[in-house]
């Protein structure tokens, strides 16, 4: 092959620039400790890194949500515990006053005063607040859900918290359920939750039912507020009203009505069952919470390691590549020096 001078210079130029650009890329990798600095470095990995990042971002929020829900659930559980103790105390008192051998009108009147106090305590438990939210008010968290006489101003709302991609965990127990027995079936065994819409379609259907109008235009102006659903107690709400149980007991005690007192004993047992049922539900939520927390922590770790595997530079291979490229560069420089120097002219003196 005929070699022209320009070929040699071009070749030297090309080779050097190729080596140098390789070197600068590796140097960049070593300095940033990243294999991926722009999407074109590895488009598939780049898209997957983004996916993992967004997962990580949501998982961090889910963790936060879990922590928040946990404090709510734990406080509810504690309050229900207090309620259990309160009813147990009432039951003890009732047992002691249920026969004429150990009790008389005098003692019953004294105990009635204590029961009245228990009633007050029960109202205060029912009106407990976490931060500035009443925990037993359903969606009505801004004002005390129970009046001193035990009537309910709250609703059946369950606050669901987004704790995982597909999971919404209810964190509150509406006071109407545990104190008034709303949504408890005839056997007193299970709670029936109001189904809440989970998708836009369900929401639209529900609101349609509420208003009887077509769903509001997405782009249109604000429409007239539709009427609120009726919160009245329905026939299926066959649980016990704890306040009434206590109140009845108090009345029976005051009137020295032994049969009434004995009836109250049964009612108190059922009340206890109703509270325990709620508590077990809250407890199982706590367990779900623990599981989810663990899963989330694991997922977060997985996200992080997936991101790291895809975008972090392997420092050993980078350094060894740098050494390789450097020696290539040296060789190129040396041979180039030799290649350019001699021409026939150098030997014609």
């Amino acid at each position, binding site marked *: 092959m005929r070699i022209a001078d320009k070929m040699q210079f071009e070749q030297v130029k090309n080779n050097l620039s190729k080596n140098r650009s390789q070197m600068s890329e590796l140097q960049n990798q070593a300095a940033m400790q990243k294999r991926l600095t722009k999407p074109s470095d590895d488009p598939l990995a780049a898209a997957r890194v983004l996916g993992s990042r*967004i997962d990580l971002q949501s998982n961090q929020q889910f963790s936060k949500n879990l922590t928040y829900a946990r404090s709510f659930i734990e406080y509810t559980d504690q309050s229900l515990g207090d309620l259990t103790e309160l009813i147990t105390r009432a039951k003890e008192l009732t047992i002691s006053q249920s026969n004429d051998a150990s009790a008389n009108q005098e003692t019953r009147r004294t105990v009635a005063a204590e029961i009245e106090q228990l009633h007050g305590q029960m109202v205060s438990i029912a009106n407990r607040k976490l931060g500035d939210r009443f925990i037993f008010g359903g969606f009505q968290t801004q004002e005390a859900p129970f009046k001193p006489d035990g009537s309910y101003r709250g609703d059946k709302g369950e606050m669901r918290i987004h704790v995982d991609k597909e999971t919404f965990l209810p964190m509150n127990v509406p006071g109407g359920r545990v104190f008034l027995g709303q949504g408890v079936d005839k056997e007193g065994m299970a709670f029936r939750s109001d189904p809440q819409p989970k998708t836009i379609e369900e929401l639209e259907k529900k609101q349609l039912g509420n208003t009887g109008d077509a769903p509001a235009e997405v782009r249109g102006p604000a429409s007239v507020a539709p009427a609120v659903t009726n919160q009245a107690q329905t026939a299926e709400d066959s649980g016990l009203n704890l306040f009434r149980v206590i109140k009845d007991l108090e009345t029976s005690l005051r009137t020295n009505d032994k049969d009434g007192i004995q009836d109250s004993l049964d009612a108190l047992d059922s009340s206890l069952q109703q509270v325990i049922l709620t508590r077990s539900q809250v407890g199982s939520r706590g367990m779900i919470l623990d599981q989810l927390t663990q899963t989330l922590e694991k997922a977060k770790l997985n996200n992080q390691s997936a991101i790291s595997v895809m975008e972090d530079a392997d420092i050993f291979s980078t350094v060894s590549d740098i050494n390789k490229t450097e020696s290539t560069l040296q060789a190129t420089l040396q041979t180039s020096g030799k290649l350019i120097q001699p021409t026939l002219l150098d030997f014609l003196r």
Partner: protein
Amino acid sequence: MSRIWSMMDIGRRSMSNSQTALQTTAHNIANRSTEGFSRQRVETVSNQTLTGAGSLQIGSGARAGSVIRTNNPFIEKQIEREGGQAGYLNSRSELLARVEEVYNEQVNEGLNHSVGAFFNTFRELSNNPESLATRTQLKETAENLTKDFHRVIRDIQDVQKDADFRIATKVEEINQITKEISSLNLDIARIELHGSTANDERDRRDLLLKQLSEKVNIRYAEGETGMLTITAGNTAVLVSGTSRRELTTGTGYGKEGPGSGNLEIMYQSTDGGTPVNVSGQMVGGELGGILSVRDDICQNLQNSMDEMAYKLSWEVNRAHVQGYDRQGRTGNLFFNMTDDKTNYASRISLSDAIIGDVGRISAAAQKDAPADNTVANIISNIQYKGIFDGGKTTIDDFYNALVGKVGIETQRSNSEATVQRDVLAQLKNTRESISGVSLDEETTKMIEFQKAFDASARLIRTADEMLDTVLNIKRY
């Protein structure tokens, strides 16, 4: 006697031939690094023999026939064609690198992050719908999201403006080149009229042709007089013999009326004719590469961003209007919305009601339920809902796939450009191998011609001595 004279004559002409050859060698050496130069050789031919006495055929020396250039037209043509492809890929990958920067979330937090933050804040709202602080935070995050959409669109438009600037420069360069080619056309025709070859002019014109082809897709043909006719694209005749027409640039008719669109390439076929938009014909060379990024890739990306912003707003609004705000009002919009999808990403904004009062954010599905978070939950779950491609793709997947697509496009054109550069370098190598100047070779030739010159001089001296001898015969 006549033979001695003839000897002297041959020697004299030979000396002159050697000088011509040496002069050409000097020309070669001087043009050793001239781009596009082909080495030249003097073609010497032996003179017609004179018929001497009897049957003797006695030669009468040599003469310089012509100066020719060593050149392979096929390779030149190939370089011109591959150069066009290289120009296309180079400019494309350069511009794509800028597009990629818009979507580079490896280093910075981008739209992906803003979208995630937007939904996370809805989750935060769902934790505590009563809190004004959370609502304010949501408003800020949502405003950030809209700003990020605007930023992406602005960045893409900046790339398009950069493309416009590059196009204007390229068009200017093309006009410079065609100007020189048309004047070279005239030179070549004039020189070759007398039967010789316009070596240096042709070298220069070949080089210019290659440069032109690197900038834009051209077709050309050489006429009988050696003049080139060059057409850019399909119809824009740039050079025809000695006349030429320039390309110009003009702002097209954009969405906001005349003067608002991108720069278009115009061609006027006759003086006073209507300038025609020929941008669509420029599919090769650097111009083609720039236009493909500006008009296809950037435009598609803008459309995708519009779709993404529109679908997001649509879904959020759809849930939000069903909800109730703090004052028990329903039917509130979260984002402002119109029927017109075009340019939505650059217009997306929060509804004025929410900007004015964060209490208007509707988290509840029923009236006067301050802790009701049903709607907030539904909105936060839109993140995991397939709202694109007929319900198959979530917003995150949609965006990540977009980033992946940009990455793949950039990666592909980078590697194609590298390959093409190597192909071109190889071809240029081959060309240099045929046409390039080698000092070693020229030095050898120099010695060769010098020796020939010496020998010719010696011949004349010998003839002179012979003449002396002849003239001195009488003395003895």
